[in-house]
């Protein structure tokens, strides 16, 4: 069994604390307790795994904040990274408006 850490209650991704192979069980330790899931893909050390199903265009939440947008449907146990997430960040405008 492998381990992952969920940094906030609202996060939909956890960070794996060791390399995880396809089909391996992951114990996700979070603020509110433990969750078990099965890796659907290989996930490198320090990378993110989906802890619930995420729809295309849904926000990826880590640290209780949005870190990007899903570019495809992502199911629980899948690797979440540049192949299925894009940044939302935009140019800095006076007054904090976003382009």
């Amino acid at each position, binding site marked *: 069994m492998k*381990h992952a*850490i969920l*940094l906030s209650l609202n996060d939909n991704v956890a*960070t794996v*604390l060791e390399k995880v192979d396809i089909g391996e069980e992951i*114990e996700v*330790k*979070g*603020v509110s307790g433990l969750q078990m899931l099965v890796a659907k893909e290989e996930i*490198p*050390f*320090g*990378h*993110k795994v989906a802890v619930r199903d995420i729809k295309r265009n849904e926000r*990826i939440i*880590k*640290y*209780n*904040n*949005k*870190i*990007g947008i899903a570019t495809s449907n992502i199911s629980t146990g899948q690797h*979440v*990274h*540049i192949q299925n*997430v*894009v*940044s*939302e*960040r*935009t*140019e*800095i*405008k*006076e*007054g*904090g408006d*976003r382009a």
Partner: protein
Amino acid sequence: MKTMMGYLRSDGSVGVRNHVLVLPSVLCSSNVARKISAAVPGSVVASHNQGCAQLGDDFQQTRRTLINTALNPNVAAVLVVGLGCERVSPHELRDVILDSGKPAGLIMVQDYGTVEAVERGTAIVRKMVEEASKSEREEVPLSRLVLGMECGGSDFSSGLSANPVVGEAADILWREEGRVILSETTELVGAEHLLFERMKNEEMKRRFAGMLKRMIDESMKNSRDVVDKENVPNNISPGNVRGGLTTLEEKSLGAMIKGGKVPIVGVKEYGELIDPEPGLYLMDTPGYDVESVTGMVAGGSTVVLFTTGQGTPTGNAIAPVIKITGNHETAKKMKMNIDFDCSAIISGKETLEEGGKRLFELVLRVANGEKTKSEILGQDDFSIWNVGIKL
């Protein structure tokens, strides 16, 4: 209501240390200031490279940082050591400190020459230490504590354990209506829209946007590496992506999380005093550790929480710096420098919440007088961020 044992100052602020500070107004008098402090155990010195041949905002930044460092509640009394011909006025420094109700003295090197200036200065500081030592700690609300949050020498463990644990500590202090300073403008770029969303008024947003723009413009004068073709800061490297960082938001959040979920109530210039209102203050500083910590301590931080993956010995002349790592190897190798090991979060043996509580217990002990590793090792780091050319 939680309490701590601190030094209540005449202006109502609370210090966690009771230092007599020897403060040179300029680089040229710094050597004399160091000699005076070395002669009197119980005094500290804030030796620096600024104070003259500076213009405009750069000069104002030095002046403001020196004054506000002297006003920090960890300081009981101050001897200003001037040269005599410098741009920063040592007389003004002394007068502003006296106006705040804090004992202050002045010695000018050009009046006596080095040897006699050291002798006279030493006599003044010796007397100040004697007086300061009569102060006693008293029970005060924990809301008087001001934490400064810093990260340096970050690695994979920082965003996973040390930074979120510091964020937990920030949230605990916020529940006690305390104040927190978050700095390092360069580390906030990429997730600035998330900070804008946490700001309650337009003035704050305007100041923060100006701060980011200034940092980016200045950086571009020297190198285009920090920005991509569309002049958007692009500080995410191929190594970051291999390490599991997907977006710039994620990278900057890893640093920003040190401020926890505390509402943002102010945006401050480098070394500017924060307001009495509880909450989180953003301060414009470089990511360069010693300069960033110096700015936050001038702003009013009385304890600094410093996360480090790879380890660093950094301390501060007047504020205890608590060194926190989530990298167990670093905690072992740099045992003499690291105050708090939170690697159990990464190994799954401790939750963030538990780690946050454990860290806050240490913060409280340090506030009450327990010495940090950097204090024991005499790490009296102090360096003012210089933003202009020297004449």
